[in-house]
């Protein structure tokens, strides 16, 4: 990349734009945005393909497949996340921010960052299933429609992240 990446959009303007997308989604579809549900679809599709007997014999997968007879990938959220990939890529291209790299805190080894990302992802994936939604589906969309469950999930996510931030500071900021 010869050009320097452009600055990020003013956060309040970006937030307004994001809120507008969310509002339009609620107006058109009657539901908010989401993300982790698409992960779940991918996972269930993988289990169905790799181990069909296991999927049929385990209640969790069998229930999901029974309620989604068209297959897990034909779900609203899968298409939405596909759109997220496209939208984020377009935005990054427009702002010169596409580059193959690993972002990490100062002095953190690459392998540490990758392992931490996988562990963090696994915890988030697990938590999103237990909490019935992640930051998008539960917290952000929940806030827009004033769902009690969505807002307490949001408080739990951010509260816990603040409480444990100190212990994981080595991953993100210089050690003092």
């Amino acid at each position: 990349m010869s050009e320097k990446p452009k600055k990020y959009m003013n956060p309040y303007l970006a937030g307004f734009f994001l809120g507008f997308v969310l509002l339009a989604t609620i107006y058109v579809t009657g539901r908010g945005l989401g993300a982790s549900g698409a992960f779940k679809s991918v996972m269930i599709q993988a289990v169905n393909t790799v181990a069909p007997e296991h999927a049929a014999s385990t209640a969790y997968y069998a229930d999901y497949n029974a309620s989604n007879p068209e297959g897990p990938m034909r779900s609203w959220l899968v298409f939405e996340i596909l759109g997220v990939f496209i939208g984020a890529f377009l935005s990054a291209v427009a702002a010169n921010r596409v580059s193959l790299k690993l972002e990490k805190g100062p002095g953190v080894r690459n392998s540490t960052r990758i392992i931490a990302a996988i562990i963090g992802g696994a915890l988030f994936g697990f938590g999103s299933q237990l909490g019935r939604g992640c930051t998008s589906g539960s917290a952000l969309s929940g806030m827009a429609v004033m769902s009690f469950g969505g807002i307490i999930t949001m408080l739990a996510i951010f509260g816990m992240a603040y409480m444990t931030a100190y212990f994981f500071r080595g991953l993100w900021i210089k050690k003092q």
Partner: protein
Amino acid sequence: MGPLIPDIISGEFNFMIALIVGIGFGFALEQGGFASTKKLVGLFYGYDFTVLRVFFTAGITAMVGVIVLNHLNMLDVSIIYINPTFLWSALVGGAIMGVGFIIGGFCPGTSACAAATGRVDGWAFLLGGIIGIFAFGEGFPLWKDLYLAENWGPVLMNEQFGLSREAFGIIMIMVAAGAFVMTQIIENKVNGKETRWFKPVIIKNAIIVATPVLLVIMVMITPNRTEVMNSRIDAKIAAGECNPEMMDADKLAYELMNQYYKYNVIDVRSPEEFAAFHIPTAINIPLEDMSEHANLDIVLQNIKTNVFYGANIYQSQRACMVSKYFGKSDNFALKLTANEFNKQYFQLGQINFEGSKSEVDLLKFRKEAGEKLTEIGESVANLDKPVEKKETRVKGGCS
């Protein structure tokens, strides 16, 4: 009237919309800096609160939008998807996600953005996410009880605090504005910058905060469509302009016996009263629910003549006014109340043959009408009912 899916836009087109929505979502997230893990985590170490600003602004924008659209009768908030509250799983799940956030540096949506822009750590987080969900599925029987405990259903925040949606909206705006100011101070401190307040900046930001607050206040003080309708009808009644065409009960009985299909007999009493007694072939639309979307479709059809009756004459006359208000011209109010009708046709008992001939004929007619109407009522009970529209909540959420 929103939501447009599934009644106005078909389900198949839904996926196209999902893709378009996703593009907007991804674009907004990336523009806001959500694809950068350092910006995301900055929120927790105080050096960069961008994400909090974007997140709260988005939530407030959508929330105010929902309030305004609801007020303008453009969005039916009673059927939009509200994530149900399962107290313990929401709290424990949220806490686990919080730890995942600080270790992994992303949440699922933002990791997708990071992956799309070439961040290797984004891909790693995505992979981890799928592993985590797999673990949840595999061990599901172990945490099934926690998952399903304390089901409160789709409760709303404002209901929990006993506030109106609008009042709670204003509180949320104030909380967000406070958070924006506080985090700016913290961010400057952490980054070793001096916090200075310039007058133009303060004025500009005050205007930005005041806009949504004023919008919500406007919603609170201006009447909605139903209130406007009621006040206009009240004014007309007060001015003595409430004189809908009245229908004689014998005439109605005769018409129903011979051509019931030409009449839309509407009982405007409560469902309980309707269940206790109603004129055969009548349908029940309580007066206060008449201006609802689904009910108006029935009232405003242009094939049948509407005949309203209620517990008293004022109810049926008012129902005529409401129907007329929305543009239906062919309305009658029944001269009798529901109870009078019941007495006159269905509780005649033995006919007394001592009156004049015309009186006896009338009584005979009424008795016969009562029997015939019961018969018609029974035979059309299943044929002629309006198709019950399923008012399902929109499905959604992340699970």
